[in-house]
């Protein structure tokens, strides 16, 4: 919406009469409308800063009406006769119509001031009165011109180009669907000759003639004329015999009555394609900028690494692709010419992305290209989406049903021993329990014995104490006596010392001359006294000794009593008995525990025996066992549940297999056909052979991925275009050239060829490792502007053309070398070339070298196969594999390739040989030797200048090489096996 400011340098005057106010009040009773002009003026002044929203009614251009709006009411005004002021025609609540107009834009009028006067005459007195109507009108025009811009880029409406693109793709899908339905309507039913059941839902059907049904094709089968009763898919087809697997197996009686088959037409792929377009239209693609990128080349910029040097493989270009694939924010275009290792590079990218936890989708138009990448993937969780019949045998194990089935088997095998172990515990548990019950009894016995021993020891102790108390008095007495005697002995010793000192003293005095004899009496007296004391002391010493001996005897008697008396022996016997019982109990416990250990040694993580055996530790030990047992029971229960679920419902593995798959492989349409995979989103989609994928197919995976890498080579095969669809476009949309462009050119080609596509979003693998340098150099010059190099340097060897890897065998001198038109008018064949090719092919085969034959026309391929069928023992599938058209050969390689141009006519008509990209494919399949067979005159003389130039360069190149160019009639000699 647009709001335009209109600032006026003058006031605006509006006359609002009392009659007008009264009428409004009468017309809208109960609605609060202004009662006076002053009230309106106050309202307007309140809005003067932001501006009064104003609408203009231009129905009468010379006298427009202007509505000044407030949230409550509007004043619808006209100009006064003098055109110098407004007068209110009516005042009314703001109507829904005015709301609607305001919501779409209005003028914000900001005059110098608002002046609302009550009567018209009052205006006449005003001097500089102006209305500003012209300015308001000009602003009003602006509000109606400027339309709202996008609110958010990601939710902005699609641009015209985007809408045109979406519309074109929708149209293409519709036209393709119409063509298919029309073709189906014209298809005749195929009569069944014989039908033979193989299994419950499979049967072998014999037809009256080969009809070219393909493996994987869905057929309907019918008994009655009106409708097909059964549907199934072709699981094998050879000639006029095919194997049909029914979706819902018919009863045997019904099966025998099946009379006809016809291809079942499904329009599902168109629904899927439309859904992808719808997702783009609704901005629901995981990369919200995808539409802008496709249509307007709006790539997101990023710092793109370029590796210029380094190891041989991956070579710098491959490493550049790998590094850019990790970083590119939206889409990377990788040009991968023949033999440049794109498949291995894709695998490397996939592995690296998976290691980063990103989910990758590997896709392509056909199953073969997808399987080719998946087949060599290692160490990644890979899932293949598709029908078993159309998936290569090497990767069938990756189909969800097979993965789940294999996983189911593996799990059941793996959990079986675990379950056995748990069951062994179950079987053992009663014994373990019994052990613990026995241990419990033993513990009781042990406790009893221990108590008894303790009691006995207590009794013994009591008795000994009582005995001791009794002997203690005697001992005490004896001790007191001893102590008294010791005290007396000490007193006597003191007295003896005193007497000795006195005696010594009197003896010294007795020695004094003259006076000495005076003391002789004293000497005798003290000597006697001293001897008496000494004698007494000796008596006391004896007494002490005696007393001590008495104490000792008493103690010994006591000791003897408590150890050797009959009573004592009785006590000892009781204690010993108790001790013995305790020891027995302990030994039994130990023995039981040892037995338990032996019984349970095979059980995992069983509780360990406590180092010290006590009733408490034993109790804890039992508790630990009980906990362990509970845990094992829970495990057993869970495991049983798990096994039962797997046995009965293996499909429960699907969601996790899908979710945990790091890499998913599916064709562009296949990824969206199965509802189980519809929630899958991808971090990265890698589309291989993107040069062959039409945009409506490629959009299907692209809308489901955040980022994409398109790997392909637009200089090889383009998308396969059905002539009927091209015709339909010419009939229905003759003016729309874009339709044809989108049909014939892949998105890859369109993006890579746009000059505005940033270099950071493109990468070219420029080094080939497949073919000899001479071939590669020719291809490089013709198709890749000299940027196609050869990465290996080996001397060329060949049994027939050593040193010349590129050989042209010219049929120009053969008598009947011209082409012939097929009987049904579909294509051409050339018998001369067919025979030549057969001879060369058989010559190589005779030398044990496997060759492949590429020709442009199915009819020519059939002729060569027919020639070979009689001379080899190959089955039809081998022949189909070896001799094919260009379309079947893209992506393959062979040591020796024989290419027959087929076309040879006087006018130089070359048909779709003129599509040089087909020739590019044909010329780049050989690993060792490429032999071209054709009529050089007819080919070089074609009016198509590009083709003629290419052939001339080719002939020039081969003629320069020794043994590079031969006339056909020279060959048999040369190719003598």
């Amino acid at each position, binding site marked *: 919406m647009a709001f335009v400011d209109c600032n006026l340098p003058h006031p605006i005057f509006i006359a609002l009469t009392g009659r007008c106010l009264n009428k409004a009040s009468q017309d809208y009773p109960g609605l609060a409308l202004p009662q006076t002009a002053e009230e309106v003026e106050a309202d307007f002044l309140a809005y003067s800063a932001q501006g009064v929203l104003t609408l203009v009614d231009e129905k009468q251009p010379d006298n427009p009406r202007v509505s000044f709006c407030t949230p409550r009411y509007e004043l619808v005004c006209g100009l006064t006769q003098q055109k110098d002021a407004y007068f209110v025609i009516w005042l009314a609540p703001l109507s829904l119509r005015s*709301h*609607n107009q305001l919501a779409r834009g209005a003028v914000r009028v900001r005059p110098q001031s608002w002046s609302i006067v009550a009567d018209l005459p009052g205006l006449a007195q005003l001097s500089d009165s102006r209305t500003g109507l012209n300015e308001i009108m000009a602003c009003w025009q602006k509000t109606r011109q400027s339309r709202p811009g996008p609110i958010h880029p990601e939710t902005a409406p699609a641009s015209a180009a985007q809408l045109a693109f979406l519309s074109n793709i929708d149209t293409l899908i519709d036209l393709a669907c119409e063509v298919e339905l029309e073709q189906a309507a014209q298809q005749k039913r195929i009569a069944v000759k014989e039908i033979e059941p193989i299994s419950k839902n499979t049967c072998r059907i014999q037809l009256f003639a080969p009809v070219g049904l393909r493996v994987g094709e869905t057929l309907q089968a019918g008994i009655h004329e009106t409708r097909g009763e059964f549907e199934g898919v072709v699981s094998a087809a050879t000639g006029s015999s095919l194997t049909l697997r029914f979706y819902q197996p018919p009863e045997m009686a019904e099966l025998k009555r099946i009379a006809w088959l016809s291809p079942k037409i499904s329009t599902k792929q168109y629904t899927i394609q439309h859904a992808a377009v719808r997702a783009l239209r609704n901005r629901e693609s995981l990369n919200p900028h995808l539409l802008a990128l496709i249509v307007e080349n709006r790539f997101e910029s990023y710092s793109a690494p370029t590796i210029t040097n380094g190891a041989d493989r991956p070579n710098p270009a491959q490493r550049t692709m790998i590094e850019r694939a990790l970083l590119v924010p939206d889409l990377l275009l990788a040009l991968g010419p023949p033999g440049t290792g794109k498949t291995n590079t894709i695998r490397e990218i996939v592995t690296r992305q998976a290691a980063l936890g990103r989910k990758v989708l590997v896709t392509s138009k056909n199953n073969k290209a997808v399987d080719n990448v998946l087949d060599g993937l290692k160490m990644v969780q890979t899932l293949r989406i598709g029908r078993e019949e159309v998936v290569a045998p090497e990767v069938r194990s990756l189909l969800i049903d097979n993965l789940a089935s294999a996983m189911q088997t593996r799990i059941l095998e793996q959990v079986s021993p675990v379950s056995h172990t748990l069951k062994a515990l179950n079987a053992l548990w009663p014994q373990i329990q019994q052990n613990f019950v026995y241990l419990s009894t033993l513990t009781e016995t042990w406790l009893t014995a221990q108590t008894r021993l303790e009691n006995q020891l207590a009794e013994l102790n009591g008795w000994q104490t009582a005995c001791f108390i009794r002997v203690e008095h005697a001992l005490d007495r004896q001790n007191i006596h001893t102590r008294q005697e010791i005290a007396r002995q000490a007193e006597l010793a003191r007295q003896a010392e005193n007497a000795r000192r006195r005696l010594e003293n009197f003896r010294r005095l007795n020695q004094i001359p003259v006076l000495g004899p005076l003391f002789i009496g004293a000497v005798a007296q003290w000597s006697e006294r001293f001897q008496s004391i000494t004698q007494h002391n000796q008596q006391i010493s004896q007494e002490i000794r005696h007393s001590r001996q008495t104490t000792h005897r008493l103690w010994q008697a006591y000791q003897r009593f408590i150890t050797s008396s009959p009573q004592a022996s009785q006590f000892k016997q009781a204690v010993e008995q108790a001790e013995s019982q305790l020891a027995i109990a302990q030994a039994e416990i130990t023995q039981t525990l040892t037995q338990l250990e032996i019984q349970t040694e095979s059980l995992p993580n069983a509780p360990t025996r406590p180092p010290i055996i006590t009733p408490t530790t034993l109790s804890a030990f039992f508790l630990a066992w009980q906990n362990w047992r509970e845990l094992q029971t829970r495990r057993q229960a869970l495991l049983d549940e798990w096994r039962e679920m797997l046995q009965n419902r293996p499909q429960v593995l699907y*969601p996790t297999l899908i979710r945990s798959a790091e890499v998913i492989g599916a064709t562009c349409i296949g990824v969206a056909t199965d509802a189980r995979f519809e929630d899958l989103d991808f971090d990265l989609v890698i589309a291989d052979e993107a040069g062959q994928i039409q945009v409506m197919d490629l959009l299907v995976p692209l809308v489901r991925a955040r980022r994409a890498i398109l790997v392909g080579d637009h200089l090889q095969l383009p998308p396969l275009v059905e002539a009927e669809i091209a015709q339909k476009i010419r009939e229905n949309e003759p003016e729309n050239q874009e339709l044809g462009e989108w049909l014939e050119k892949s998105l890859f080609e369109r993006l890579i060829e746009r000059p505005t596509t940033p270099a950071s979003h493109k990468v070219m693998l420029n080094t080939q490792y497949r073919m000899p340098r001479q071939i590669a150099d020719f291809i490089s010059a013709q198709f890749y502007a000299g940027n196609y190099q050869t990465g290996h340097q080996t001397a060329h060897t060949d049994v027939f053309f050593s040193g010349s890897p590129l050989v042209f065998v010219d049929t120009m001198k053969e008598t009947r070398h011209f082409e012939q038109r097929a009987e049904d008018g579909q294509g051409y064949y050339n018998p001369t070339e067919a025979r030549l090719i057969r001879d060369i092919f058989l010559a190589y085969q005779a030398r044990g070298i496997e060759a492949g034959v590429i020709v442009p026309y199915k009819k020519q391929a059939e002729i060569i196969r027919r020639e070979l069928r009689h001379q080899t023992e190959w089955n039809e599938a081998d022949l189909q594999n070896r001799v094919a058209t260009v379309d079947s050969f893209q992506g393959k390689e062979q040591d020796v390739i024989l290419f027959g141009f087929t076309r040879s006519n006087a006018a130089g008509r070359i048909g779709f040989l003129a599509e040089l990209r087909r020739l590019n494919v044909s010329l780049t399949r050989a690993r060792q030797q490429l032999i071209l067979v054709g009529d050089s005159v007819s080919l070089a003389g074609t009016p198509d200048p590009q083709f003629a130039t290419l052939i001339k360069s080719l002939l020039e190149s081969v003629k320069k090489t020794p043994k590079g160019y031969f006339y056909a009639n020279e060959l048999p000699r040369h190719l003598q096996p």
Partner: protein
Amino acid sequence: MPTNYPATSSPKPLLYSHYKALDQVQELGFIPVRLFRVLYPLWRVRVSGQQRVTAEFDELEWYLERSVQETGYKSIAELAAFLGLEPAFVQRLVDLARQVGHLTGQDEHLMLTPLGLDSVRERLRYEDREINAELYFDALGNFPLTAEHYKIPILETLPDKTPFQAFYHFDHTWNVTALEQLLQSSQKTQFNLPDKINSAELTSPEPVYLPVYFVEARENKPSGTLQLMIFSQVRGLRDPVLEYAVNRDPQIYRALKARTNSRAESVQRYFEQSGMKKEAWYLNEEGQWGAQVMVDGDFFLPGPTANEEESGRLTLRSVGRYTLIYDWCIWVMCDDATIRNQAATEQLIEWLQNVNIRPTEFEVQQKITNVCQRLSVPPIRPQIALSQARAKGFSRAAERLAELDDD
């Protein structure tokens, strides 16, 4: 939380036919008086936050997480051995469980998070996801819309040519306090709210618009008062949330009152513009079904097409029901029994063609009775209805009628 309906810039049509709304008003026991086609302004607020998302557990994941909880195994090797899976596969499952926040701890110390425990216990795969949600608030009153509204189309810009008229929000602005109030609300689960909000901002200063019908109706009784009913594309069509928001705002009712023509004037003008003589129609403003107009049989066009209805012409679809003349709801009746018979058949096959769920035989019979009663005609003969449905190319209706005929 419902995924937002993809915004679209030019939906056609913006809303179901107004007949549907008027029929429902009648079924609710009201007499419709006026109907307005309105584009109601809403603020669209982008909110980022966390949301606990619930999904079905993949069985394998559930067993892995149960194993962690119930078996005491804490290492990938133990879990792989127990479940019989490849350790690398278990590692991937553990990584997935870590990504959704169910498992924590390094290998050998794996344990369930509280989210994982809840998930295992309830066997539902909970995941706390960072999400960006869009909330719609009534632009006039900041009243939040319920989860139901996120399933219906919202207009990002105003379409150029439409009979729907937008309300202008004037100086109303979105106020973040509306969101805060919403978070405090005990009824917050009804809204499109994540469990935890990190940021919120208006996606644009301009509102987006919700196409609705405002129906002014009165109860079908003498003292019946007028009230405003809102019909949008919510389930059941009547939109109580918006009705509450609208009835709170006198400004809206004021806008609806601002009219110029009375009912009689409008009807007269309508028939004059349609080229009808005054004698060919008669308006009774106090009829049993409110205002009723009796119209000559010649006036009705043979069948309903969108263009005719958009142009305002009366068709057979209009007979015996309310139709819209300007904003006025008028019960249209015809005194020509043939026209009424045709109208009954027409309305039956139109209903059979457009009804969403295949009606039972009883429902079809009831519809026939209702239509015939309403139009005062004898019961419709299925064969006639069948041939008419075939002639009109109404395949669904024809198929159902053929089945009834078989029965």
